């Protein structure tokens, strides 16, 4: 087990470097530069800029320097936000995205698991059909439609909730609901399918035969196996949660990391792009590892070499 974790932790480093290299390559292959978004510069000034940022050196030296920086986890200064280091920018803006993301996933877990379990236990009941239809709706309505419609009703119609920006807990309600809708739907469907399969399995019959109460059978034996699909969904979900937060941050004007990332890419702010890509890749890979480890606790039949 320990060996497995160590192996996976070690593999994160080359993987993150691979992702960064890919991103760096893409930025470099594309024509244009971070200063070319502004007006045409005289050649002398352009040469000076190139010299200042080391762009006049051969590509392998630039690449080596960049890799060195990343290995030291120091991404340098942003090109667009003068005088601010990439690390500072990430530290300042990431908490917004993380708060919305975590709360949204928690909400999705609570509602999704509950709906999925009840739907599976009362298969073909009204609740089953109703919640599964609702889940399908959640899967199909893009979050950039859900968000504005919520704003239209609760802020501009009823004046209950603030429409945008960052403030107290009231400001969090709509962004979190918007972001969690699709995950709620996925989790409800996965839980229902997983529970239906598990409740038919032999070990559940054994548990019932031993005379355990229905609640124990359900919560101690059924749930553990039934939520494995949900756990494996968590890995890809975290990656797409990132994409979701970008939209939610745009709709609700929240100063999170997603917005900064999109801006940095449009500005060709290379150190900032690479810094955010490296940071998020490592984060996602660590979460994926955590997901893989938790399988072992949920299903004792899964073993690691």
């Amino acid at each position, binding site marked *: 087990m320990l060996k497995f974790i160590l192996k996976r932790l070690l593999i994160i480093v080359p993987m993150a470097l691979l992702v960064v290299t890919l991103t760096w390559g893409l930025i470099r292959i594309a024509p244009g530069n971070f200063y070319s978004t502004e007006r045409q510069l005289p050649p002398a000034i352009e040469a000076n800029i190139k010299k200042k940022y080391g762009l006049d050196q051969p590509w392998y030296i630039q690449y080596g320097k960049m890799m060195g920086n990343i290995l030291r986890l120091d991404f340098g200064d942003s090109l667009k936000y003068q005088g601010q280091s990439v690390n500072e920018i990430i530290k300042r803006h990431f908490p917004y995205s993380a708060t919305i993301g975590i709360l949204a996933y928690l909400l999705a877990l609570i509602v999704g698991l509950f709906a999925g379990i009840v739907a599976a236990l009362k298969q073909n009941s009204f609740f089953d059909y109703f919640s599964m239809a609702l889940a399908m709706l959640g899967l199909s309505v893009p979050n*950039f439609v859900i968000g504005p419609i919520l704003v239209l009703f609760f802020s501009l119609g009823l004046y209950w909730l603030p429409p945008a920006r960052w403030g107290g807990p009231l400001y969090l309600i709509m962004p979190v609901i918007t972001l969690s809708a699709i995950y709620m739907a996925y989790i409800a469907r996965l839980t229902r399918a997983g529970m239906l399969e598990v409740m038919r399995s032999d070990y559940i019959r054994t548990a019932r035969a031993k005379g355990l109460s229905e609640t124990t059978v359900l919560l101690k034996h059924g749930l553990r196996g039934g939520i494995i699909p949900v756990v494996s969904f968590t890995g890809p979900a975290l990656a797409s949660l990132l994409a979701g937060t970008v939209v939610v941050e745009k709709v609700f004007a929240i100063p999170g990391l997603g917005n900064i990332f*999109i801006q940095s890419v449009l500005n060709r702010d290379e150190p900032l792009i690479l810094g955010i890509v490296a940071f998020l890749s490592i984060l996602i890979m660590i979460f994926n590892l955590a997901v893989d480890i938790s399988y072992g606790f949920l299903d004792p039949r899964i073993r690691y070499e």
Partner: protein
Amino acid sequence: MNEETKSTGNQPETVMTGTSLWKDAWKRLLKNKLSVFGLVVMSIITFAVVFGPMIIKATTGLTPDYIPADGNLIQSFPPSWQHWMGTDEAGRDLLSRVLQGGRISLMVGIISTFVSLIVGVSYGAIAGYMGGRIDNVMMRIVDIIYAIPYILIVIVLLSVFGGQNTPDWIESLAGIFGGGAGRSQIFLLFFSLGLVSWLTMARVVRGQILSLKNQEFVLAARATGVSTPKIIFKHLVPNALGPVIVYATLTIPSVMLTEAFLSFLGIGVQAPFASWGSLAADGIKNIAIFPWQLIFPGVTMALTLFSLNFLGDGLRDALDPQTRKF
């Protein structure tokens, strides 16, 4: 091609049940009311998207980018008899714009799924049939790509190559589809969305091939001297078609959702083209005053995804032997 798959693909099934797998599945699909609903809605939407702009042009003379000459008409009007979905700020008919955008959205969804189909099916089939070390290496590569947060790379790819920064070689590749401003961006979308969605397909196909490759009909084919590529693509792949179709149907909505999300952020489909995502992005700016500008493209898109998801679900129930047990 379809006739052929039917005859080569389902010999064992046909012998045992006397009715073909596809006919059986079709019957089961028609019994599922929600899937029939999805099928009908998708047919209507496809028809409207393909022929709608032409019909509107023929009856009212409006095109997606027709800006009225009368200055008083250059503003956003709510839905009316003349403009069923209202107009946008430039006075353009929203219905024709939504239908035009639907063409792009559906096209991106279908072509990217097609790319993922070709790459994923070949990759998975080869890995599954070859087995051993080749299989190991090929699937390990898939595992590694899986761990990459592709959305970050897609965003970088689309925005650094987009707009005026498109290199000539992409421009010339996009020329296959007619070329011109904005086309290379759509080409990039096909490419990058297809690139990231073949992974699961490869896994699904590999699993199917693994369970098929030791059956007698493969042995018979090998004994009669059929070449390996022929065994893979003429004997094995047609037999794995059920799950492939199911998964492809479910890939279309997810790709469309990603496209909409990218266009919403302003890095997907770009002017002069529009898609449902970019129309919604335009609409959100004026949500308080002109809500129809967001609601119509958004709801049309939601309805399409809704139907595609129902259709995919129904197909899975009808074709997937795993769920057929229940």
